[in-house]
């Protein structure tokens, strides 16, 4: 059942690498935020799944609002001359680690429970 998401990841990767569109240098910041936001959402989704409180609306809306807010921050930073997008990068980075830690905890506890059952 983990095959389909992996296939999705692969398909996205293939499309991303075949697409030849030149991004203007000013928008590279925004792209990097989008990368982090999407990675964060994937890990957040997996974490929620393992904790049994998964909600598809929360996941997708979370991705879009997070990405939008981050893009807005980056834009505001550009206007103000402050690298505000770094704040978004920082938050996403921290969340990535937190999600990863949560996933690890859940998986480990699941594994232990299974052993005890056996």
């Amino acid at each position, binding site marked *: 059942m983990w095959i389909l998401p992996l296939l999705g*990841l692969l398909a*996205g*990767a293939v499309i991303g690498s075949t697409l030849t569109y030149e991004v203007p240098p000013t928008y590279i910041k925004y792209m990097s935020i*989008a990368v982090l936001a999407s*990675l964060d959402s994937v890990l957040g989704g997996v974490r929620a799944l393992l904790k049994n409180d998964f909600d598809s609306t929360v996941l997708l809306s979370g991705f879009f609002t997070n990405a939008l807010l981050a893009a807005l921050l980056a834009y505001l930073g550009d206007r103000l001359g402050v690298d505000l997008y770094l704040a978004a990068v920082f938050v996403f980075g921290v969340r990535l680690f937190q999600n990863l830690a949560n996933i690890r905890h859940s998986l480990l506890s699941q594994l232990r429970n299974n052993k005890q059952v056996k």
Partner: protein
Amino acid sequence: MSRKWLLPITIMCFIAGFFLTFQLKVMADISTVNPISERNTNLITIINDLEEEIKKQEELIGETRDNLDKIQEEQIKGRLQELQDSLKTAKILAGLTPVAGKGIVITVDDNTEGLKANPNDDPNKYIIHYSQLLNIVSELKVGGAEAISINGQRLITTSEIRCVGNLILINTTRIAPPFEISAIGSPRLLTEIVTASELAIMKLSNYPVDLKEAEELIIPAYKGDLQFKYAQTKGEN
């Protein structure tokens, strides 16, 4: 547990994979292109455009001069003949007509072999400098050269030989090595005087130097504009 989560996760994975590889690719492209070289390519296109424009203008000047010549030739009648002859010699002196005759062709190039052999050495020791061209030209003039051109650029009274970075400007045209200096005059005399100094020094420094005598050498006309805003003729006899 239902399988409701499968589709959203797949969509997210798809988006994440897409952005990840896309950004990777963009960054890979960026690292190979730096803004300075991009600006330089812009400048290069501007220079190329301007040079094209200069070429067009030069052609226009040439055409106008040809027309003028035709009109003048049509008017050759009696007394005018004398004036026409003096005009012709004046034009040769000014470098406004292509000329042909005996002479020599000197070819000099950067000492790329030497630079390759000593890559850590100062490259300035291995490239041709404008001063070397100036010296050769001066010696040719001493040797009685009647017409000189470098890479097809006729040298006239207003011609400059000037250093612009790694290129040389002659008649405001960029010239790059190898440099072919053609001179019309007595081949024996020119060879003698040229091989005595600057060329000898260059040969000692292992620059690729070549000197050929030519029976029939054609030196092109000066293509640029000639205007006198300040100079006025005075007391002409």
